[in-house]
């Protein structure tokens, strides 16, 4: 598990006249937790949307190297990125299936695998044993995740009835049920209290360690970012202004300027 997993090169995204991302390049190492930070409106979520196929970038290349294959995510449609390149994501404003149960949410995430096992539904309709076995496995996997996020006893409740923090965790678990190599988390700690965000830190570190999933996250909560990231990319106005380890980024004058504004005396460039 080493080397570059995700390589973003010269990514540019324009909406009409507005350039949301301007010639951005960065890479994420396999087995690392990479964070993208930056002030509001810096283009972080747009980067995510480009990586996960919700936007088609105006220019640039997004390469994902998995096993020995390389996928150009900029040229793939959203669902293919999840099913073929195995990049999963969560959303800033949680997107669960609120009227389905917690367990069903996790089963739907294993759709493609189950679809094959059900022989594109035909074998499944006749209840072939191979399908039933696949479904049992899917439930076992879901149960495993529910145990890890502490929601086993809520498995049969509607996802919409969970409280906010539990919904965040469920969304992460659901993304992981797709067996990703890279998980993109869009502000996973937003709206969590201190205890919950510490729990989230532990969960994310555990995901990297035991499941071998690399993480890419957007976050405002500096406790999360500085506490767990191996590598940080700082964006401002769609451009990369810094790139490095948490300590290096923390000390970078450009970052301080972006967050705190221009000091009165112009610093030497």
């Amino acid at each position, binding site marked *: 598990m080493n080397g570059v997993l995700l390589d973003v090169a010269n990514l540019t995204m324009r*909406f009409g006249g507005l350039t949301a991302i301007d010639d951005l390049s960065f890479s994420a190492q396999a087995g690392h937790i990479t964070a993208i930070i930056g002030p509001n409106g810096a283009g972080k*979520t747009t980067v995510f*949307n480009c990586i996960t196929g*919700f936007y088609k970038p105006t220019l640039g290349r997004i390469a994902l190297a998995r096993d020995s294959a390389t996928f150009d995510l900029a040229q793939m449609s959203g669902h293919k990125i999840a099913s073929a390149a195995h990049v999963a994501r969560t*959303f800033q404003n949680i997107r669960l299936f609120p009227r389905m149960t917690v367990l069903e949410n996790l089963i739907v995430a294993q759709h493609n695998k189950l679809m094959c096992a059900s022989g594109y539904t035909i074998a499944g309709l006749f209840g072939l044993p191979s399908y039933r076995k696949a479904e049992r496995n899917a439930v076992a996997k879901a149960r495993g995740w529910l145990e890890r996020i502490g929601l086993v006893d809520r498995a049969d409740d509607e996802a919409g009835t969970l409280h906010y923090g539990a919904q965040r965790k469920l969304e992460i678990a659901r993304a992981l049920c797709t067996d990703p190599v890279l998980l993109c988390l869009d502000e996973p700690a937003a709206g969590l209290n201190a205890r919950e965000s510490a729990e989230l830190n532990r969960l994310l570190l555990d995901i990297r360690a035991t499941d071998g999933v690399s993480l890419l996250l957007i976050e405002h909560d500096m406790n999360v970012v500085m506490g767990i990231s191996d590598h940080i990319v700082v964006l401002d106005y769609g451009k990369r202004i810094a790139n490095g380890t948490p300590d290096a980024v923390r000390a970078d004058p450009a970052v301080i300027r972006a967050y705190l504004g221009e000091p009165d005396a112009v610093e030497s460039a």
Partner: protein
Amino acid sequence: MEYFLQQTINGITLGAVYGLIAIGYTMVYGIVGMINFAHGEIYMIGAFIAVIAFTLLGMMGVTWVPAAVLIVLVTAMLFTAAYGWAVERIAYRPLRGSFRLAPLISAIGMSIFLQNYVQLLQGARVKSIQPIVTGAIPLIETGHFQVAVTYIQILIVTLTIALMISFSLLITRTRFGRAQRACEQDQTMAALLGIDVDRTISMTFMIGAILAAVAGVMVTLYYGVVDFFIGFQAGIKAFAAAVLGGIGSLPGAMLGGFLIGLVEAYWSAYFSIEYKDIATFSILILVLIFRPSGLLGRPDVEKV
């Protein structure tokens, strides 16, 4: 050639009517993001009110045509606006924030309700009135064929263009227009800035209804026949016009209206009159598939 010219004149007239209805679709879509399915019915109600008002004026002995047309226009606009307001208040406002399909289903319910409401109250038979605005200006006369533009066609097109200009000014220049555009962008923010969102939405529905009423009066004058079912077809065609022009765009609605009107006129003239509706529906489907943002619309960026 003469025939082509005549069809162009007819198509533009028809297109003006579709354009007026299409503006209602476009404005409502812009502000609440839903297709007001009952809008065709609002137009039908406008036409019925026109028939009733013309008959009433006839019985009262108002025979000077300009006065009669003006009175009927104002009456139809006023009462139809009340219908526009009520439809929004009853069927749509309680559903803001409900699930995705709810307002659409409610709108279909409203459309069915209004159709049957008018049918029950006014009867299912076709209502026809005597021609009121008559006469025409001959343009070209060849041996066997005469190209003419009738006064009513002139009235329809000029009135439509005048209304179009005044409503564009209303949207771009006035306080209401500013509020309207603000609500289109972001209702929560508009409310925080002290705009009465409910009122703005109500006003939008009323304006749509007023323009539909004008279309209803014009159609009554043009064809002289009205029944409770005319809203359905006109509604789909006007919607096709709104989509073709780019939904959310006022000039687009007008342009789309004229184009649909022309297509219909040419199609009936050169191909077959039976298939003219199929031609319109095909345009609607093709535009939605290949250029969902229409001719003048902004592309729709999916918010994630």
